[in-house]
């Protein structure tokens, strides 16, 4: 359904002024979370002069990167009607590999981490498609399986980097934009491009909207679903590498509970959990909004103990508001 709507808006002649207004209005309606993020930024910059300093902006961006990579990677999986709860475990595994294999050379370590991420995604995708078990159950299982294997291979220890170049590279920055932020931006844009402008992306929306119809229309659904899981695994690996680079260390507990952060961001960003609707821009907006909220509360010296309460309440409130605005769209589909 939404794939069709999307194509219609794309074919409107962009030179027409009304169409441009209409398109940006539609965009803002779809991605209203960006307005929330903007409002929060304005609120916190009025409350504390420290919010808009270059140092703090760099801080917010760096905090965004980790969750953004993960949530943006998860978005295509959710749009195709699945979920991946194993992303946090994949972050732990890949962060450890990126540090553990540094004695064999930085390239080897990074490639191994990326390959492991892709492999985790491939495993999830193949099990989901070959067995027909729901992705919620499969990735609930691989979440503990991958975490267990990481502990088994590495032990209950913390690894520190033997090669300083990765950490040094992550420290390079142009103003508030560090190299890690820049690379993450490119990766996120790439996922957004794949989802919006490629056949794979279009088919992903179609499968999530109505899988049977998509298969009847000749779409090789399995291949696209597995592809999205691999993409998600790769992004989780990028997240693991970014964490390892930022900290110059890794441990098998890295990324614990991150799957919940990622799912929260994807849903807050307006992607429908049943699939067929959503996008990277919304997810990114949600990550930015949540990070600004945490950062702002820190700056206002709110005890960090209150943050889970506030984040949970914001999540529920956002769902209720979304429900009021979008009305009874799901009432019969539940």
């Amino acid at each position: 359904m939404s794939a069709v709507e999307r194509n219609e808006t794309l074919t409107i002649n962009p030179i027409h002024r009304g169409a441009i207004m209409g398109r940006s209005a539609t965009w803002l309606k779809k991605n209203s979370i960006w307005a929330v993020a903007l409002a929060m930024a304005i609120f916190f910059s009025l409350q504390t002069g420290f919010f808009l300093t270059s140092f703090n902006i760099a801080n917010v961006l760096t905090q965004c990167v980790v969750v953004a990579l993960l949530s943006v990677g998860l978005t295509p999986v959710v749009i195709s009607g699945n979920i991946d709860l194993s992303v946090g475990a994949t972050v732990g595994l890949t962060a450890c590999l990126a540090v553990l294999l540094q004695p064999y050379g930085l390239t080897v370590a990074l490639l191994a981490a990326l390959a492991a991420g892709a492999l985790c995604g491939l495993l999830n995708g193949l099990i989901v498609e070959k067995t027909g078990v729901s992705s919620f159950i499969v990735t609930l299982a691989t979440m503990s399986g991958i975490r267990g294997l990481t502990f088994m291979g590495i032990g209950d220890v913390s690894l520190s980097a033997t090669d300083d170049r990765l950490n040094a590279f992550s420290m390079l920055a142009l103003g508030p934009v560090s190299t890690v932020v820049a690379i993450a931006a490119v990766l996120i844009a790439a996922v957004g491009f794949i989802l919006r402008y490629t056949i794979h992306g279009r088919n992903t929306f179609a499968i999530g909207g109505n899988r049977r119809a998509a298969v009847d229309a000749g779409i090789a659904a399995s291949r696209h679903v597995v592809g999205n899981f691999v993409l998600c695994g790769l992004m989780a690996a990028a997240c693991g590498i970014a964490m390892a680079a930022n900290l110059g260390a890794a441990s098998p507990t890295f990324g614990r509970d991150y799957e919940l952060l990622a799912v929260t961001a994807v849903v807050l960003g307006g992607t429908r959990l049943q699939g067929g609707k959503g996008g990277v821009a919304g997810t990114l907006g949600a990550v930015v909004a949540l990070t600004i909220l945490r950062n702002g509360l820190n700056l206002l010296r709110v005890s960090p103990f209150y943050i889970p309460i506030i984040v949970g309440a914001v999540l529920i409130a956002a769902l209720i508001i979304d429900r009021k605005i979008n009305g009874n769209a799901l009432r019969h589909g539940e």
Partner: protein
Amino acid sequence: MPVSLINAMPRYAPAGLLFTVILAISALMPQVAELQNVNQVLRQTAVPAILAIGVTFVVITGKLDLSVGSILSCSALATIEVSNSVGTAPAIAAALAIGVAVGSLNGLLVAYLGLNSLIATLGMLSVIQGIALVHTDGANIVMNDLEAATWFSFLARGSVLGIPFPAIIVSLLAVVAGVLLHTTTFGRRVFAVGGNAVASAYSSIDTRKTVFLGYILSGGMAGLGGVVYASRVMTARHDSGVGLELTVLSAVILGGASLTGGSGSVFRSLVGVMIIGVMQSALLMLGLPFYTQWIAVAVILIVAAWLNVISSKGGMPG
């Protein structure tokens, strides 16, 4: 295989799996089957078993409850604090009240406001755990009188005729819940709503009320689980129940309940809890580190869910 046998498979597969696991383990490692260890497993699985009984109702209505672990933390804290200051009986009442209150809030969000149950209960998980964290400042809350062999400590530590008392509590709760689910009108509505919500609504079933009551049961059971937990450990933290929601959910799925709703049973969920408990005990006895349990749970969960899919496909000719 005859069709009737394949049809029956999902119903008996969990019990069969448990039987196989127990047989294999006791053949390979006789010490696991020793009475002392069996009693130990029964004590350890009591808390997840109580939670699983409640979660089963929610899953059969086609919803999820991820907040049970946090409810357990809160109610265990309440049990200890109130019994330190007021007394044990009010403490149990307070713990139950917390469970029912959070359960009804979950029910309100999911049933009456129509929110997605995964996300709504995830939000509640975060909120409740945060409240417990703020309240305790991250500290351990310990029972004042650790040594006294009161009736409260009997709840999780006592035994009757050699049977651990928590196992008796679980059995009683399971019988009541099983009767409620399988013989009453409410139970039939639970299955109907999970099987087809729209058709249930047209059959003048109050689907919202049914889902709402399911969450109250789940919350109440988690509150009760907190009481048994507190009695067993005599101390609690804001994160006592972290991760328990996933263990319990895995057990319910192992018991053959479908996440899309409409199928499941209290008895089979308990079998799921036992499969995980027996396996954990065996792996610990082998001297394997804790994370091997995670890998084993992962493999068993996928295989069990797969068998469930195969048998339900094969069982429906045409």
